[in-house]
């Protein structure tokens, strides 16, 4: 039983990371109906930005302030990169066939992966310890660690801010509008390009936050680090119903839990297979995913 709780705890912790990254996929899909394959590289760039800036600014010692700064730097920089990727790579193709944009996204992703290997080096780097991890308390013989609680906490705060922006602000209302009827919104005085940029910035910032959280917990970063998490998060987004915000979050948690139970209870060799089995299953039997519905509002 203790083992089960431990797996659940670990699964939820990683699931919240999946949820944060999956939101980026789902938001961009919601507003542009394109899959931003470069999202996993924006995640990677967030980690590297925090790595270099923390070193440069001398913020690489464990302290709550440095941890917060790391998160902010990661979010800010990932947001910036998301903004520029959209402006430079996707916007010129706004009216081209879907396939062109998709292939461009794959191209951007490869550019970042291998450009990163040239600039940062292919060797993994050791991410600075931004917060002193410790056992806070024991619950039924399971140690609850600070970093895990922080991951939950930061994820939930980020999700809270996101849902506030989407459902309570004017920008959020505009986002929802653009995702439903992009042809009508300009008539209502909404600048579509601005809203699309905002979507990219917010989605990318969430990826940047996820990257800093993951790198603090698993202090090894390299230019290919986004690939695995990106793939799994994408599957989580499809599982939850791509385009649906709640779907991405729930899909992320379910996938995280699923992977942990699977590996923990014997089938460790098939961890990667699980995501793809889910993907195939969803595509075959419920293409809209758990919460996906073309008629429902989405961004």
């Amino acid at each position: 039983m203790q083992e089960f709780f431990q797996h659940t705890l670990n699964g939820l912790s990683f699931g919240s990371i999946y949820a944060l990254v999956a939101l980026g996929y789902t938001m961009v899909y919601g507003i542009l109906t394109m899959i931003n394959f470069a999202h996993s590289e924006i995640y990677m760039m967030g980690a590297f930005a925090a790595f270099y800036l923390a070193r440069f600014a001398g913020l690489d010692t464990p302290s709550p302030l440095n941890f917060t700064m790391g998160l902010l730097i990661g979010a800010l920089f990932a947001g910036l990169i998301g903004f520029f990727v959209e402006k430079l790579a996707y916007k010129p193709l706004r009216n081209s066939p879907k396939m062109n944009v998709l292939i461009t996204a794959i191209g951007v992703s490869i550019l970042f992966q291998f450009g990163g290997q040239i600039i940062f080096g292919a060797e993994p780097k050791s991410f600075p310890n931004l917060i002193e991890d410790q056992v806070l308390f024991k619950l039924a013989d399971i140690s609850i660690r600070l970093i895990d609680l922080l991951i939950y906490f930061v994820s939930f705060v980020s999700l809270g801010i996101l849902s506030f922006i989407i459902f309570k602000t004017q920008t959020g209302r505009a986002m929802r509008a653009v995702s439903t009827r992009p042809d009508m919104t300009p008539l209502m005085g909404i600048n579509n390009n601005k809203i699309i940029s905002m979507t990219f910035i917010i989605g990318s910032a969430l990826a940047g936050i996820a990257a800093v959280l993951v790198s603090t917990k698993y202090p090894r970063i390299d230019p290919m680090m986004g690939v695995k998490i990106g793939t799994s998060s994408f599957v989580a987004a499809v599982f939850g119903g791509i385009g649906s915000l709640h779907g991405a979050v729930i899909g992320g948690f379910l996938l995280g839990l699923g992977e942990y139970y699977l590996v923990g209870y014997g089938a460790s060799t098939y961890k990667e297979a699980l995501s793809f089995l889910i993907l195939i299953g969803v595509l075959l039997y419920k293409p809209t995913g758990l919460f996906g519905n073309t008629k429902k509002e989405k961004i």
Partner: protein
Amino acid sequence: MKKILLLLSLSLLTFSCTKKTNDNEILIGSYSSNTGATATFGVFQMHGTEMAIEEINAAGGINGKKIRHINYDNKSDNDETLAVVNRLISQDKVVAILGEATSGRSKIGAQVAQQNKIPMLTSSATNQDVTKIGNYIFRACFIDPFQGMVMAKFMSENLKLKKAAILRDVKNDYSVGLSDVFAEKLKAAGGEIVIDIAYQEGDIDFKSQLTAIKAKKVEAIFIPGYYNEVALIAKQAKELEMKMPLLGGDGWSSPKLYEIAKEAINGNYFSNHYTTESKDPKTINFVKAYKAKYNEDADVMAALAYDAVYLMAEAIKKTKEVTSENIRNELANIKNFHGVTGAMSMDENRDAIKSAVVVQVQGAEYKFITSVNP
């Protein structure tokens, strides 16, 4: 136009011929991954090779002939490896080849060398299959199964532990090979593999595997992976308050291991080819000279490459006439060669028989614990 082309190719031919006809030189080629994903391996290999050749030439060469060394970078790439080995053989006409540090690319180079009947000596490719490619392929290190045996023996005899878990990288031949032999030998020694669980290269979270292992109450965990993953595994094992020793193979050997894992990796053991703590004056001199020349600690890859050059020189010294075939025959007969990584002899499979050392990680240093003979 045709005439010019003909002239060009003729002159090229004569050029390449003149290279070979220089009787006072022995032309040896090497290939290494000086850039790319495994650049650290390649650079250490190149440094070790160059240092040994300079020493031999400074001491008057081999039977009065100087060694001329041509090194090509294969950029850690398989196709590039094929190209540079072909170039060494057909264009530069080397009599023997040194390389490579990794098993995968050594296999590729070995196929070309074998087809052209040029002896190739790899310094640190431990995968069994490399020398099976043909009778011109040799290695100056032990093979993977031996490392699995060493750690099983170390666990049962030195640590006196019986119940082990295996955490293997399923996609990696090296890791799978070591794991299988470890399991077999530990059982033969009266031990038991309680749980055998997998991960994949590139994973960052191993908590579920470790939680499953923790529930089984094992006394040691064998993790024959590369330093990248091992460092994170050690860190997470510590977070789960698992105190049993972790054991591994030479894939652990990298400064990155400690950089990433910090104190979590301290006190754990792995098998290696040599230790910088060796009392052998030859090794002490090498470590000192290497540090003086390159201003870095001599990694095991450099030491093995250094030994490979001397091994090759030893074989060439015994030949009456320096031809590829003669070098091959002499390499096959090497017995009791004394290098900086210990004594070695070639067996009938052209693999070096030599002892391994078990070291304990203590910060950035590896402390010598014991040496295990074949």
